[in-house]
Structures are given as C-alpha cells and as structure tokens.
C-alpha cells in the first residue's frame, strides 16, 4: 500500500502530533486552484487617451475559467484620490478599486466570475503623466477538483438543491468562499462568520500578512433553487496583525473590511454539538465550486484523536475536496461540532477526513468570541 504524504504538508507548519508512523500524511486543503500568469498591460499616459472621465477601458476574457483576479501595481506618483479602476463582470459584479490605495507592491482585485471582466480607469481629475498603472498578473481558475470521498461515491450537493432539507440549507449563509495567493499559487479555502465581521478559517489557509492581503471572502456564491449562479459581496481581510491564529487548532480568525453578519448570519460558538453524537453536515466550497453541502453518509468516526495537537481532531466520513478547508461541520441540529481541515489519502482512496473539535476552539476563544487569548506563535 502506497501512502502519499502530499507536498502541501511542507507549507503547513508543525506536523501532526500523532505518533502513528503508519498514518498517511494529511492533505491540507488550501487548494491550488489555478494559474497565475504574467500580463503586461500598461496604463500610462500614452494609453490614457479616452475621453474624461474614462481615459482607458478594455476587457479580459478567459473562457472556461470560473473566475479571474487581476494584480494591480502603480509606478510613479500616486493616482488622485478619486481615481478608481472599475471592474464589471458577470453576476452583477461591479467593483471600484481606489487607485490611491495601490502602490508599487500592488494588490489583487476582487474575484470576477466566469473569467470575464470589463475594465475602466475612471479619473475625474487629471492624473500625473508620470503615474502608471500596471495589470501585471492574472490569476485564473483552471483546476478541476478531486472529491475526498472516504467511501462510496462523491455525494457533495449544491446547497440549494431540492434534496437538501431547508433547515440544513439555512446553515450555509455564513459560509464564504476564500480566494487568496500564497507562494505564487492561487489557492482557495472555505470560511464562516463567527461575528458580524469576524471570519474563521484554517490557519493553513490564512496565516500571514500576504495571504490576508490577497484574500477575498465571497459570500452568497451558490446556485439558487433554479440552478442560477449568484454571488454576493466580496470582503477583504482587514489586517493580519489583528487576526487571531492558533496553529495547534489550525484555526485563524480574521477581521473583514465590512460586516456581512447582519445579512448573512453567523455561527454561534456558544451553542456547540458533539461530534460523537451522530450525523453531521459540512457546508463548504470544494475547489472553485459554488457552495455545496455534504450531508449524506456524513458521520464522525474516531473522536479526540491527535491532530496538530493531542486530542484536537475527530475523523469524519463527509465528502470534501481541496478547498473545503476551513468549512464548518455541524450536527443535524445546526450546532457547530468542528472545523474541517485535513484529509488523508491511502492509495487512491481517502480513508479519513479530519475536523478540529469545536469545543477546543471554543476553549481557545473563551470566554466569548470577542476575546482572543494569545497563543504562542509557532516557531
């Protein structure tokens, strides 16, 4: 039997605290979801020839890509405070990026679905001729997912599928799709609101200022009951210095640049379930896909086993895939029982998926979700 310790382990910090040497390596599901290609789109004075207030416009289309993101960079004097780069795309995405916030190090745009965007530089006041905006990288989704089905066929189901009970469907609103860049790769994870503007995901997803700066959390990215795709607001990670990170529990809690909680709800960390008690559901964004739910053949196995720390984890049989990291695991009553983070592959089969016990996270975050005891940073 060949066991595959997959390469992403190297990015994950401390290894699992388990001493079972026969255990396969975990797959940390910060999913590599596509390509980042260099682009050489220069928007300097020579290119800004259109009529005011739109001196430049263009479009980008990558057919077959579920989404794209643009990396913007400014050279020379800053753009005026009222200058923006406007991106319009499918699913009514209409984004205006203030260019005075874009510096020489650059920033990644929001995510534009279906791989297409119309782009316009909007500048009501004159731009310094020496100021140049570059679109120097293009992130494009391009990878297909492999479902992690511990047994049986993949039973991931769109969250609004008619087969999904309404009370389970309702649990999914606070769950967001996370897109970020790490180590030159485009990656995805899942996350969920635990406060009006606080989002929990895995530490192996958002664990640095760079991942925080590039992260966009997309809410409402799901098919509706008639199979139409929708996409809600995108919010960014505000400041990694303010984030709470627990390597042992593989958990990060970041503050968003807005507060979608009142609209999308939040997971109550004060009302927890026990993984040992029975069937579970995982609401997640596998790979680049819109929100899905695993609720069939989805149950806990071993509990209180070692993950990154002693007795932090439980195994489960719920279907997941790359990109499901950071998804909430609920019991069928809607109480949080865990934070999904690992999968183990044994040959071509998945022999377990892993979640972190919710009560361990609650202990870390106690006495309430607004207080975050510091943990010793990982070395």
């Amino acid at each position, binding site marked *: 039997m060949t066991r595959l310790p997959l390469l992403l382990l190297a990015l994950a910090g401390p290894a699992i605290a388990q001493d079972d040497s026969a255990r396969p390596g975990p797959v940390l599901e910060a999913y590599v979801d596509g390509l980042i290609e260099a682009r050489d789109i220069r928007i300097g004075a020579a290119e800004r020839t259109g009529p005011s207030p739109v001196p430049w416009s*263009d479009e980008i289309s990558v057919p077959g890509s579920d989404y794209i993101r643009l990396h913007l960079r400014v050279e020379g004097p800053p753009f005026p405070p009222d200058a923006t780069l406007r991106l*319009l795309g499918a699913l009514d995405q209409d984004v205006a*990026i203030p260019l005075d916030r874009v510096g020489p190090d650059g920033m990644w745009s929001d995510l534009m679905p279906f791989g297409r965007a119309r782009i*316009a530089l909007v500048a009501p006041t004159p731009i310094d001729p020496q100021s140049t905006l570059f679109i120097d990288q293009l992130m494009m989704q391009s990878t297909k997912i492999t479902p992690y089905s511990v047994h049986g066929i993949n039973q991931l189901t769109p969250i609004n599928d008619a087969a999904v009970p309404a009370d389970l469907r309702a649990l999914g609103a606070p769950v967001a799709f996370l897109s970020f860049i790490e180590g030159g790769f485009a990656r995805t994870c899942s996350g969920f609101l635990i406060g009006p503007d606080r989002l929990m995901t895995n530490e192996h997803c958002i664990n640095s200022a760079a991942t925080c700066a590039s992260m966009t959390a997309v809410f409402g990215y799901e098919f509706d009951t008639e199979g139409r*795709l929708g996409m809600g607001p995108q*919010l960014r990670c505000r400041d990694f210095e303010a984030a709470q990170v627990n390597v042992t529990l593989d958990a990060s809690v970041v503050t968003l640049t807005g507060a979608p909680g009142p609209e999308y709800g939040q997971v109550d960390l004060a009302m927890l379930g026990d993984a040992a008690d029975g069937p579970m559901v995982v609401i997640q964004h596998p790979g680049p896909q819109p929100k899905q739910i695993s609720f069939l053949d989805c149950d806990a196995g071993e509990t209180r086993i070692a993950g990154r720390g002693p007795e932090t984890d439980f195994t489960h049989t719920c279907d997941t895939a790359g990109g499901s990291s950071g998804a909430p695991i609920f019991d069928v009553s809607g109480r949080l029982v865990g934070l999904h983070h690992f999968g183990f592959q044994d040959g071509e089969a998945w022999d377990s998926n892993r979640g972190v016990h919710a009560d361990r996270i609650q202990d870390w975050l106690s006495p309430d979700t607004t207080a975050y005891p510091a943990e010793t940073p990982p070395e």
Partner: protein
Amino acid sequence: MIRRSLLAWTALLAASTASVATAEMAVPQITFQWQPDAANAIELSNEIEALYLALYNSGNLTVRDAELGQPPFVESLMRQEQVMHGAHFPVALDAMMCDLNPDHCRRTLRPAGSGELRDLTAHVGGYVPSRGRWSLRGGETLNIPDYDFMTTTTLERIPAPKGWTPDAFVADQGLDCSAFKASCEDVVRRFNPQLLKAPASGNVAITVPQQQIGTTVALRPDTRSSYLNQLKEVMNPDQSGSIAQLSFDEGSTFSPTWNQTLESRSPADLAIEAIRQNVQTIGTIQNFGVGDEPFLHSQIGLFKLVNHPFARLEDLDETQSQPVHVAVIDSRLSDGHCDLPVIRLSDGTDLAPPAPETDAETTPTPVSDTTTPAPPPADTCATIDHLAMSDADHAAGVAGVIASRANGKGMVGMNPHARLWMMAFDRNRVADQQIDNLILQMQIAIPEDVRVANLSFGVQPRLSNPGRMANAMAVLGSRMLIVAAAGNEGEKFDAQHCPVLPACLNDLDNVLTVVGLDSDMDDPGLWTSQSAGSNSNPAFDIGAPAENILSTATGNRFTHQAGTSFAAPQVTAAASLVFSTGEYVYGDELAGAQLSPKIVKDRLIYTSDFFAGLSGAVRAGRLNVGRAINVREAQFELFDGRTITGQVLEAPDEFVCRTPIAGQQFQKWYNLRRLSWNETKQRHFLFRHVGSDLGGRYGVLERDASCLVRTLSAPVEVLVRQNNGPGEVVSFQFRDIRDYTSPLFDQ
C-alpha cells in the same frame, strides 16, 4: 444641416421648454410635395405666402439660420436664399418674418378677428398682418424658412397665339430643358410637329416647356388629426405610438386666442386644409433623416468602413426599409430605450421607449466594500456614459448597432427599420447549462417571423456535445440566419481546434461568424486591445469593425463599445437589409417569397472587401453593406477606374483562368459571384457557387484564390439606367474587369 422646427424655435423665444416638450417628441412626419398653381409671378408670391402662413400658424414651419448680405433687407435675404419667389413680398410674410426674428424687428400686434382666424392664411399667429419695424445690418443672422425649392421644367399645354409656329418660340432666360437632352427650342419643335407645317389658326393648344418650382413640406400628425387613421395604415406600429399631442401655451408668440384654437383643433388638419390645392395626395410617413441624428458624426467613420449608405447621408430606400424581424439573444433587458424601437420580448410583452419623465435610473449594485460607483446621469437621450459596461449595457449596445431609430435623437442603427426581438440569455450559468438553454431557445422560443438572430457571445462546453447545438441551429436553416461573434480572447483557431460555440458552427449554411477588425480603412487587421483581441479562424466568414462603436446603453444612455460583440450586429443589420431588399425585389420569384438564410450568408461573404492582410484570419473580408444590398445590379469596377452598375446584356458564358488547379480552368459566368483583383498576387480570385444548377445559389460557395484571367477580349455589355431613364449600354472587354459582383439572382 440640422433643421429645427418652429416649435423648437418658439421654445427658444419663450425660454421655456415646457411649451414644446411634447412636440419635440413627434417623430413621424407626413410629407407632401407642394407645387404652386400660379398663372403669373404675382400669384406665385401669394401662394408662397399662403404656404408659409399655413405652416407657421399650425406650428409646422421649419426654420434655419441665414446671414444677411447687402442690402440688409429680409426680402433680399429670402430671395438670395431661394426661399422666396414671385413678384412681390406680401405684408403677411414680412409680419411672419418679424415674429420669427424678435431681436431684429418689432411690429404692432393687433389680435385678428374671428373671421380672419377661420382662415389659416389670413393672420400671423393670431394677429393681423402688419409691416415690421426692422433694424438690420449686414452680417447679422436671421431665422428664415428652411425649404428647398427645386426648379423643374415641365411640359404644359397652353393656348397658342394666332399664327404661332414652333420656330417663333424663344425660351425665357433660365428655362432649362436639359432633362430632355435638348434645347428648349428643340423640345418645342419635337412636341408640336403638326404646327411646323401649319401655323396655329386659333383655339389651338400647344406644348411648351414651363419652369415650375416646388418643395417638400412636412407636417407632424397629431392625436387630434382626422387623418390619423389614414396615416396609421402606412406607419410602422412603433411609430404610431409617438404621434404627439401637440401643445401650444402661453410661452409661444401666438396670440392667446390662437393658442386656444390650436388646443382644440388639429394643427396638421388645419394646415392640410389650407394648402390642399397645392399639395400632392398624402404621401409617405417620413422619419427623421439619418442626417438629423445628433451623434451621426461619431458614426460616420464606421459607416464609411463598411460602406453603409448612411456614410453618404443617404437614407435607406423603400426596398431596404421593409420591417425585417431580428432577434438579439443576449443578456436580459428590463427597460426600453429612447433611441430603440419597441422591443418585443419572447414572452410576448414589449419594452417601449420610455417617456422622459418616467425613465428609471440604473444604479450599479455596490457589491464590493471598496467604493460605491456613482449612478449614471439622468436621462436626456443624449448622454454618453463611458462606464455603461454591464451585461445589460452589452445587450442594449448590440440592439442599438442593429436598430437604433432614425428619430432625431442620439444615433442611428444600421437598419433602423428592423423589428427587434430580445431573447434573454443567462450568461451567468455554467457553460454547459448555457448551451442547454440556448438549444432550448433555438428549439422552441424563436418567433416564426425572425429572419436573423444575433449571438454576441461564446461558450466553451465542458461536457456538452457541440453536435446538439449544431443540430438545433441547423433545424432553423430554412428560415433564420444566425450571426455569431468570434469572441475576444485573441485565439487563433483552425479546423482542428475551434471550441467556441456558436462561432465554430459556421460550417452550417445558416451560421455566419464575424471576426472583429480594427479601423484601418485601407489595410485592416484583426482588432486587438491591450488585454483582448478578436479570435480568428481561416474558416470564419467575415469581418467588421470592432473598436470605438457608438451604441445605446441602458438608462437611455449611449456608450462606445469594442469587441466582436459589436462587430457581429453590424453584419446582422446588413443581413436584415439583404432580406428586406432581396425579398422586396425578387419576392415574385421566390417560393414563399422568402430568401434562404444561405443566400444571405453567401451574399455577405462574397460582397465583402478583401484585404491581403486578413488572409488566414477570415474567409472573406470586411463587410461592405452598400455592395451587399445592391441586389438588382451587376457591379463592375474597371481597371481604368470606371464604376459601372446595371444589367449585364452580354458576357461570355464561360471564361478561362490560368491555374494549376485541375478543373478550375473553365469558369461558368452564371456561377460566378465575385471576381476581384488581388493586387499582391497580380491575379484575380473568385467566389462561385457550385454543385447546383447553372446560376443556382444553393450550392457550395467556393473561393478560388488564384485566377489569371485568360479570357481577354470577350465583350461585356451592361445596360445602365439612371433615375428610371431609358438606359445606356456601356461596353468593355472582359480584361477590363478589376472587380465584378453578381446581382443577388440572375434575371
């Protein structure tokens, strides 16, 4: 020159738009040919006076600016500008001109009596005619009537003086008989042969040329017009909705009594009654001409590139103005547009052009936490918004390129007479769902009347079998042409790799794929931008300009667009024009009086402009609308520079090419659709239909890239007619042909 109506002018005087707002909405006009019935110059002056007063008092006078010369008199100016004829200058005209130019003239305004008010030509705006007190200097600008009086020479029968002979006839100065291709004296001799031998002995009528003037006048129909039902019969349904409830109020220069009269009567009917004896029977309803479109200057370049008649400010003729139904399959539109016709939706409802005061503003949905984009400006039907870039704006833009109305507002589409259907297509579905939905639309949702469908999008299927979509489109092959955009990814496709649907289905007879071109008139290349560019494939059919395309956008706005999405609708519009004129001209010869979509597809291909620089990127060249829609005539360009269009009377049934390709040496004239000189190769290339009967159009359209013509001295004779005249035969040799385009069908 943009003309303005008196009603608009009165608005200027009153500094109030409220008094004329509805009148400005009056799009349709009734046109008449006005001709005087005067026996002498005095009567001519009086009849012109009556014409102007009828138009002025009914709010239908059209005016323009003119600069005073020397002497600075209003009568001199009007004669100099040829808007006044006859022996004298009536007092009422002086009064009317005074009221038209209040900055330069004052007069005593005495209300007209009830008897005078009953006669539309007996008062000036409800006041008694009176001389104006003018203060004029040379170089100043006055408002004058804006009518082109055309002088024509007609033959009249008049009593002959006793002893008159044709030889005694001396033409008055200025009498022009060139239309008869003879001197006026010769005309008299030709038309009075019996008097050459026997002088008139009394009570004899003779035929002599007489100079006549005439002009075209336009009246706006209004809701009170008794002629309305008559007018509706000849108007498009979408025009009848814009007949105005004309409004006259205290803001105008008319007397209060006359304003009240006009509120209760139909101004159009009053005018018609007043000039009835001088006008032809009610003619056609005429929209604003293309020259009246405010944004035309932004479109002229495009019209020149595709050789559209609008580039020469020519309106479409009757054959080209038939209401062909065109479907735009694109993102959903939720509102009409002030410059689009009524849009029919697939659920049977309509999107009508909104009234200005009820137009809803479209606000982009703020979905990012970065900033909230500003809403677009309020509706004026004259706003260009460079940020109109949403999917709905895309749909509105495609519709506008095709069918924006010629209504004196905004821009004009390439076929403003097209009937527009919008079929909502959800591009927010995953690719395979999009394909499934498109197949369903093709199978059940396309209205039967639709002859052309525009698909300015592309889908790359992941799992779907392209054959299913091909089958759904092929089923429509007998009745609908599908025009597809090539896509904007800058990909070079070929026969082995072409994944975009529906663009790559153009081997079907009724699918025509359009690549985008840049705006180089003489040497166009594929359209590219910094981050996008037209896809290409040697098998794609035709090209059209794809940059800086002005079109309509949501919220009654306009914007400039780029990409193959806006090249395709140019071809769609051209196809609809070919359907219009082809079925009009050849309707009596067509089974079911319908052109086959294949005929139209082939027509657009072989009439395009070919450029060496496009070789390998597209099968044909750049769309040439003018060549495509001249369906009746053979079109020749000769090496000596002559352009000859007409009916081919004589041509070799077969001509010879020197070519290494076996079987291609002998070409059948009746199968030839295009013979065009390739400057680079110093040879002709040709398009021909093969595989059907001689002269048939249903076979395969083949392109032969190399034909060194060896048939040199064979005579070609073309019957050229101008203005339905008797025609002239133009002869040349086969070797003289630089470019030949066949008519749509052989007669």
